[in-house]
């Protein structure tokens, strides 16, 4: 970001479950900060990271903040490429229906609402990693 106007491809790789460690929340904080710099941002959720997107969390009983409603705001920050490892979901008995329905509005199509989450397999994940300029791991 040293050159004004330079856009790079940023990928945030999320591989840890929420609450047991602080990684998931910290990643989301960094994504939101990075969004302010108008880079080409993608998020990848694999391994236990897929648990971050599960809907219906209620953290009252553990005395911690439920930070996951913030994922729904990512679309407003033009963070709308959210990739989820299909195999990681299956291994954990989860499906797309268990996750938050994250959307964004496409200004080029009269603000049509579109899905942000894309299920991907190993080949697509491999390609995703290779095409990035910068990769952050959490």
């Amino acid at each position, binding site marked *: 970001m040293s050159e004004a106007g330079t856009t790079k491809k940023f990928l945030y790789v999320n591989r*840890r*479950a*929420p*609450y*047991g*460690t602080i990684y998931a929340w910290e990643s989301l904080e960094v994504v939101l900060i990075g969004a302010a710099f108008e880079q080409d941002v993608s998020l990848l959720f694999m*391994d*236990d990271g897929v*648990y971050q997107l*599960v*809907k*219906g*969390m*209620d*953290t*009252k*009983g*553990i005395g*911690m903040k*439920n930070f996951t409603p913030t994922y729904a705001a990512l679309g407003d920050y033009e963070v709308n490429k959210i990739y989820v490892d299909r195999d990681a979901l299956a*291994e*954990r*008995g*989860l499906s797309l229906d*268990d996750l938050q329905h994250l959307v964004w509005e496409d200004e080029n199509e009269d603000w049509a609402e579109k899905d942000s989450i894309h299920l991907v397999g190993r080949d697509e994940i491999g390609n995703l990693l290779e095409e990035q300029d910068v990769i952050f791991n959490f």
Partner: protein
Amino acid sequence: MLHIINKSPFTTTSLDSCLRVAKAGSTILLIEDGVYGALGGTAVSDRVQAAAATHTVCVLAPDVAARGLGDKVLDGIELVDYDGFVDLVAANNGVQSWL
């Protein structure tokens, strides 16, 4: 004896190590990220279900609710709250925490 597991079965071998050596009749309590081991339809569900036939397997309900997975806990696993956690510690001779 009370065995406590607080790590996801998909990131460490804590659950497998515990299940390998825990004596029949002992109690296994899943807490924090360990609660992911208590859910149906996963790659470890069969092993945990089998253990529940010979051990008392419990899961800490507030940790399950926090993760949004309360409706997926396996049959045969007992949901306990923090008071129940304390009761388990008091009722058992010795605690092994599989960190």
